[in-house]
Every structure is written in C-alpha cells, then in structure tokens.
C-alpha cells in the first residue's frame, strides 16, 4: 500500500525481467500493475487510461530490439512515454523584456506560494539578477509579514504596502518601487484562492492586466489528488499559465499530480520545491524525474549538487593527495564535511539508483549524528595521529575515546572505514585519472555504511 511508484515499477519489471518473451498476456499483467501504481500515485484517471493505451500500443506492436530483453524494452517504452508526458526538456524562465520583468505566483491556499516566491528570488539572485518581492496577499493574516521576513533572509528588496492598500494598487506601486530600486525582476506573491472563487479569480485577471507578467507560475502541491487537473485547468483558462512549480516534493508524495497537470494543461513544470529551507529549490528535469520514478536514480542531480558545494581547489588538492597516496585522516574529515554540505543523507540516498528497492535501507534511519561523532573522534587526535593512524595503540585509543565521548569500538570502526576508503581510492587512482566527484561518491557510500 505504501510502496511508492518506484518500488511498484521495480516489482513489475523484476517480474518482466524473468520472462523470456514478451507475450500479450504478460504485458497485460505488467500494464495492470503500472495502472494501479499510477492511480495510487494520484495520477488522474483519464491520464492513466491514455498513458496505458499508448504503452500497450507501442509495446505490442513493436519488435524487441536484439540488444534488449523484453523487460528492458518495456522499461524503455514506459520511460520514454513518462518523459514525454512530463515535458520533453527543461523549460527555462522567460525573463526577457524591459525591466522590471514581473512574475506572478498563483495557487490554492497552502500550496506554498509565499515560500516559493522567496525561493525563486534567491535563485534569481544567485543568477545575478536583482529581484524584488511584492506581497499581494492582503487576506490571510500575517501573510505580508511572512514574505517580509523571508525577503530579509534572502536579502532582496521588499515592497512594503500600506495598510488597506488594494492588491491592484500594491502591484502598481511596486512597479515604480522596483524601478526606483533598480530591480530587474518583480516577484508578486498573490493570495491563495480556490479556483472556484469567481471574485478572487477576477482579481487575478486584473492584476495580470496591470502587470502584463512574462511568467505566471502556478504553485501546485505534489500531494494533490485527482483534483489537481481541475485546479490547473481553471487557473490556466483564466490566466494562461506559463509554468508550474511543484511544491513539497520532499515528502513521500508520489507526485502523480505532476503527470496530470502537465498532460492536461500542457504547461511545463519549471521548478520543484524540495524542503522548507529557502535553498531547497531546483529546476525541474523531466528525464530525471522519470528516472526517479522508474528507480533509475538521479545521479545527475547529485553530481550537480556536488559541483555546486564542493570547491574546486580542495578537489584538486584531494586528487593530488590520492596520487601521492598521502590521504590522511584529516582529509577524510574534510571529505565528510563536504558531503554533509550536500544535504541530508536521506535526500542524497533518495537520488541514488537502486535505492528505491533497498527497503531496509530506506527504513533504517541514517543518522547524521554519526558524522558529528566521527568529527569528534578525529578532532580528539593529535596531529601526528591524524597523519599516521597506524601509531594508534590501545592507550592512545582510550584517550581519544575519553576525549571525544565515544568508545574504543567507535574508533576502530572509523579506522576500518578510513582504511577501506583509502584502499578503494588507490584502486581508482591506479586505473585512470581520478575524477573528484566519482571518487567522493564511492567513498561516501563506504564511509557511512559501516555505521
């Protein structure tokens, strides 16, 4: 019941892999599973129907390529169709036009508009634009205050409306405010509203005609059920959306709403929200999302994240150390620190291929505190000990255990995983020129598995 789409597909395809030949019957079985999985993932009923029909048509009519097993062939088709359904490629924001370029953020109550507005502003700021945040939500108590606090955190200009100012006036004045403050982008956070609320939908139309925004983004909760289609359709009809932001993907929502919204409105999904922190915001990649669903992992995202957080200098230093085989416990600690910067381990694990299948791994709570422990141990060593761990005898270990509040067993375990990491790196450096990220990733897996 609680298996996610990935796990479901895993089961289907594992079964298909065991088959020598793709028959009408076993496609049917597989497609039934796919159908159930998609429905449980909250993909809209009609979209599912359509999707299954397309897969069936393609699968049955097609000859199996000689290089693939029948099972692989189906995976390929499902994957291709999923990508097609999610939108073929990444859709960038359109920010052309004379500044300030307005972006409107719309959606239901509680979908995450205000947070998304702040996240988007941070993203644009990182891209060297100067965004300005504008609150047009005068209905929910303290909504303006919320955006103001977030604007402060991101450190972008914030238009502070007067008491009782109408949304129409707010955006008009905000345009002038942006010009005066030399902001090139205006991010307007609108009030949450139900798509059936005529009055408030009219207000959005009026705001649209005042702003003539180049982007109108619908924020949709990834947990939305069958209703997602209707919501998106209504907003699209009234406002002609230019894109969708899928929020709250960090839960265990299967995100079927994404499939439905895209299929029904044709609006590309541009970003995804992955957590409560302002930086938990990513560009949406249809192919990666599909890979995630199919359990093929999302290695690309990890690599990109790694590139973002790990500075090149230290990576180069590491490569040199590897080649000279002088990788010490100090370097080990540095590596661990950098991995921690990548994000929570659960997040990283979710992106690794095959992890969807490893249930026990999913349930096992990987404790980020272990990292703290390791750091404490290494910090309690003398410089000499860090550079030459083989001088660690029983009495030294006891001292370190006391100093770091751990046990000798903990220290032994750490030394073991350090040894493993070193051995593995020797192999990597021995064969080809090492790629920093590759080495790091492998070691990271080893590094926390023993704990």
């Amino acid at each position: 019941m609680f298996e996610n789409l990935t796990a479901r597909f895993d089961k289907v395809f594992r079964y298909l892999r065991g088959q020598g030949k793709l028959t009408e019957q076993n496609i049917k079985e597989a497609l039934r599973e796919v159908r159930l999985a998609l429905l449980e993932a909250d993909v809209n009923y009609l979209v599912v129907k359509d999707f299954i029909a397309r897969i069936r048509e393609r699968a049955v009519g097609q000859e199996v390529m000689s290089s693939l097993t029948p099972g692989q062939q189906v995976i390929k088709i499902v994957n291709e169709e999923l990508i097609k359904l999610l939108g073929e490629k990444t859709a960038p924001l359109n920010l052309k036009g004379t500044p300030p370029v307005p972006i409107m953020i719309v959606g239901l109550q509680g979908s995450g508009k205000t947070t998304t507005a702040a996240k988007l502003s941070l993203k644009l700021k990182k891209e060297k634009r100067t965004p300005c945040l504008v609150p047009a939500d005068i209905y929910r108590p303290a909504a303006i205050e919320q955006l103001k606090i977030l604007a402060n955190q991101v450190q972008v200009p914030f238009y502070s409306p007067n008491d009782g100012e109408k949304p129409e006036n707010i955006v008009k004045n905000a345009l002038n405010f942006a010009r005066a403050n030399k902001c090139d982008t205006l991010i307007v956070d609108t009030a949450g509203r139900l798509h059936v609320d005529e009055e408030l939908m009219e207000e959005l139309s009026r705001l649209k005609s005042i702003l003539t925004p180049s982007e109108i983004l619908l924020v949709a909760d990834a947990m939305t059920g069958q209703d997602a289609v209707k919501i998106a359709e209504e907003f699209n009809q009234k406002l002609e959306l230019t894109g969708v932001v899928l929020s709250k993907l960090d839960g265990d929502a299967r995100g079927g709403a994404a499939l439905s919204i895209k299929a029904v409105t044709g609006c590309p999904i541009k970003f995804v929200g992955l957590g409560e922190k302002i930086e938990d915001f990513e560009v949406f990649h249809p192919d990666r999302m599909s890979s995630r669903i199919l359990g093929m992992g999302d290695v690309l995202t990890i690599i990109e994240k790694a590139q973002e957080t790990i500075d090149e200098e230290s990576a180069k230093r590491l490569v040199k150390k590897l080649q000279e085989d002088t990788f010490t416990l100090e370097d080990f600690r540095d590596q661990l620190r950098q991995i921690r910067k990548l994000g929570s381990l659960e997040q990283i694990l979710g992106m690794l291929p095959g992890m969807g299948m490893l249930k026990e791994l999913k349930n096992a709570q990987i404790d980020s505190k272990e990292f703290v422990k390791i750091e404490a141990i290494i910090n309690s060593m003398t410089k000499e000990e860090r550079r030459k761990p083989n001088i660690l005898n029983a009495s030294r270990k006891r001292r370190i255990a006391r100093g770091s509040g751990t046990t000798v067993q903990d220290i032994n375990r750490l030394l073991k995983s350090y040894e493993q990491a070193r051995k593995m790196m020797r192999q990597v450096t021995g064969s080809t020129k090492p790629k920093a990220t590759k080495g790091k990733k492998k070691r990271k897996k080893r590094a926390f598995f023993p704990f």
Partner: protein
Amino acid sequence: MIKWFRKGEDTDSANKHQLEKKEQKGLFSKLKSGLQKTRKQLSSKLDSLIKGKTVIDEELYEELEEMLITCDVGVDATLQLIDRLKSEIKLQKIENPQELYHILQREIATILDISSSPLDPTTHKPFVVMVVGVNGVGKTTTIAKLAHFWKSQGFKPLLVAGDTFRAAAIDQLTLWAEKIGVPIVKQRAGADPAAVAYDALDSAIAKKLDIVIIDTAGRMHTKTNLMEELKKIRRVIAKKVPDAPHETLLVLDATTGQNAISQTKMFKENTDISGIILTKLDGTAKGGIVIGICHEFQIPVRFIGIGEGLEDLRPFDPEAFAKALLETDNDE
C-alpha cells in the same frame, strides 16, 4: 436480519434528525453547498451512470469504480466498497440500478461512522488539544475556527502559538486570537515549542481556562526529527497535566490524494492521533480520501472545514456527509 437492523438504525437517526431539524437544516444546507461541487461531480456521474441502465452488470461496476477513484477514494478502498456493494446486492437480490445508489450511500456512511469516545471538552480541565499536520493544510486557520466554535459554546479556550518555525506564523495566530477575543500564549520565533506549550498550561491552570489548543509547525510526515519534536511536546505537557493531550487532531487537506493515507499512518505512529479534521472541502476536491482513512485506521473525522469564515467549521456527521456526497440536486 441485516436489513432489519439497518432499518431500525435509520428510523432512529431519522427521529433524531427531526428533533434537531431547525438547527440541522442550516447546517445541512451549508454542508451541502460546501460539498456542492463534490456532489455535482459524483451525482451527475452517478445519474448518467444509472439512468441508461436497466440491469446491474460488470460494466456498471467498472464505471462505478472509475468514478470513486476520481473522487480520491483510492484503489484499495474502492475495491472494498465495490465488493461490499456486490455482496449486499446479491444478498438483497436487487436488480434495479437505482437502488444501488442508496446502498452505496449507506456503505460509505457505515465506514465513516466510527464509534469511539466523542470529543468532549468537559471531561478534563484544562482539556488539552494538540493540532498537527503537514505544511499548508490550514492548521492555524482551523485552530482559530476551533477556538471560535468552543467559545460560542461557552468554553474559555486558550491558544498556544506552537509554530515557532514558519515565518510570521505567530503573528497570524495572534491576529486570529484578537479577532475572536481569546487569550494567546506565545514566545519569540524559534523558541522551543515544548516550552511554549508548558508555559501555556501553567497559564491555563492559573487562569482556570477550559481548553488549551496547541498549534504546531507544519511538518512533512517523513521527517523523523520533526516527528521526534512532536513526541517531545507530548512528553513535556504530560508532565504538567497527566494524560494530556486529551485530543490530538490531524488536519488533512481535502485536495490531498493518496498521500493523506501515508500522512495519517506516520502521524498516528508518532503522536497517537485521536481525530481528523478535513479542510478545504469548499473547492472541487472530493475528500473521498477519508473513506480510505476511516476504513484503514478507524480514526473518526471530528470536523470539516467548508469555507474561510470563522464559522465554517462543522462537526462531522457521517450520514450527512455520505448523503451530501451522493445526493442528486432534486431530492432532499
């Protein structure tokens, strides 16, 4: 036998309904208008489903299944419902598709009607209520509505701004408290919610208030550390008032799909949910998910949110809900 039993039940509740008719009428029409979209969707489909049919066949069941799934009832619960429907129809030898509708309605009401201890704030003083849920389901607004509801019944509620994480959440609840005219206990943003709750209980006992409603920060049910925080709040308040919280309410958004089941499961495991509040039923969302939830977890739905006004929170009535869900426009 079963039929008789059911009939007896029906007349009983019919009597009850008549007694409260005046009050009920307003409530029912409000619920009906709140659920109008839902009902239109379900009933118009049901109508067109049934109208053209003279016999009950597999095809009809299949279409029924499709209809329930599009109402977020969920694959599992749908199949169960259809199964129950089938056996009931066989048992009662029903051939007319029209009657199918009444049986379905009754089945849904039966699932939703969970006999458990009712929510009664007079059992303890102060009666401690903790409100939890994922982000953006409407916890803070619901708390305001709850306070308003209990205040209008003559209780003296106290609000606790336990969401110290989200920007301006404290301000939001403070504004509500002023509007309703109830006291609030708050600290600065980032404070330990358990400490805020503890202080609030102190104050409630000193001021002899009846109900303490604790807001908590929205949290994804998959974040273990945040779930631990909830447990901590529970532990801390139990130190002040033994066996508090007396009620833990999970707020669910009606637009949420199957994930609501996962949410309920996780929150139940961690904080022992005793009741559910279903919000945002005034949209086109069908809230069919509660059928699956009630079926699986046997947690009663306490209230439903059907609008943005303070009075738009209603005690949940399974029969009325099932009726409003399935009823056609021309019969009342």
